[in-house]
């Protein structure tokens, strides 16, 4: 079994960040587990990019403390600093400035994605830009590699290649990787841990299997489900389905109800609701 308190690659304490009047991050304290792949998920605006930028030291005006126990590399869709450069010249720049950056690997990955290294960064399509960022981040060999929405615009073969490349990197250069994404179920086989953000707060931070084991989808007739406090209840005909903690279901005992597992994506959707005080009740 995985260690319930793994060593930290990044330690965040009391992190808050405002963008103008918006509170992007609200008093976040968490450890990013070392040498595992963590999925970072949450709705648009939940704070995923802000959190990754704080870790990468791109947000000097945050409150709280950040400790990163190793070199950090963050991809993001902000290539502003790279305006007018070719991908190849960015690789040259990273080779000079980032110890451990493997320029040959970067060119290899670009060619596997089919992105021309001579192309200007600003001329790449959205998918090509994502592929280029992923290539540079994986080739950085940074002990803490942060991939912010690596799937943006990637076509299906490129997404499959992305997953294969992450596995390759974990085998040859094991390290701490954080992947933020909205393609949760497609990416979940890479995750060992999951962090769920909602409105700038952490609503879950745990082993994926632990979280999956704690929640179930349950389905049954209205009468049968009357006493079960369901999250996200939906009705069709006389049938109700919804999500509930396994321990609660066992306690109320809905005999004959059909129980099934959640996908990681369903889990990510329900955890923000579960952290609020008053769940909607069925019936």
């Amino acid at each position, binding site marked *: 079994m995985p260690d319930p308190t793994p060593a930290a690659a990044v330690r965040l304490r009391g992190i808050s960040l405002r963008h103008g009047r918006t509170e992007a991050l609200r008093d976040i304290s968490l450890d990013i587990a070392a040498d595992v792949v963590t999925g970072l998920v949450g709705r648009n605006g939940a704070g995923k990019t802000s959190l990754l930028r704080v870790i990468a030291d791109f947000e000097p005006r945050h409150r709280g403390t950040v400790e990163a126990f190793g070199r950090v590399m963050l991809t993001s869709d902000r290539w502003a600093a790279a305006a007018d450069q070719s991908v190849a010249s960015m690789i040259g720049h990273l080779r000079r400035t980032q110890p451990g950056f493997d320029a040959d690997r970067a060119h290899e990955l670009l060619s596997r994605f089919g992105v021309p290294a001579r192309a200007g960064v600003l001329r790449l399509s959205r998918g090509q830009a994502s592929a280029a960022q992923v290539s540079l981040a994986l080739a950085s060999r940074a002990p803490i590699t942060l991939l912010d929405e690596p799937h943006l615009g990637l076509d299906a073969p490129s997404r*499959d290649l992305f997953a294969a490349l992450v596995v390759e990197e974990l085998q040859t250069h094991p390290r701490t990787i954080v992947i933020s994404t909205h393609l949760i179920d497609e990416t979940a086989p890479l995750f060992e841990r999951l962090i769920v953000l909602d409105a700038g707060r952490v609503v879950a931070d745990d082993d994926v299997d632990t979280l999956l084991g704690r929640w179930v989808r349950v389905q049954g007739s209205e009468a049968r489900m009357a006493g079960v406090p369901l999250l996200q209840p939906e009705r069709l005909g006389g049938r109700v389905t919804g999500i509930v903690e396994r321990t609660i279901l066992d306690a109320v005992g809905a005999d004959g109800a059909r129980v099934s597992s959640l996908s990681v994506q369903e889990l990510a959707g329900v955890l923000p609701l579960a952290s609020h005080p008053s769940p909607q009740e069925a019936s």
Partner: protein
Amino acid sequence: MVSYSTNEPIGEAADGPVELPLFLRIAQALENDIVDGTLTEEAQAPSTNEIAAFHRINPATALRGVNHLVASGVLYKKRGIGMFVTAGARDRLLAARRDDFAARYLRPLLAEAALLGLSSDDITALIYKESPDA
């Protein structure tokens, strides 16, 4: 992506499809290969790196799956070489599956038959009709 349907018996409260954790589905896929003879006894099992690359899963998850089979005696480790299928593993897996046969297959069948109003005699007749050696 891994998309094995799992037929494992599930918890008392459950009688629907409760999926096993990914590492157990990996273990089960290897067990299936042993049961159907794809992976013979004393043959070398795929390495965790091969499993991870094939399924595009985290190598740590593949390792947990393999370690699960080592713990249950289905695989054993030859130091510096890899994992191998234990002699007698297939018979033990078959015995375990026979024990599970009623829970996995008969109970869902009987539940559906009850819904359809099929008697035990009807079911028996159907079994004879569908059997290849009938």
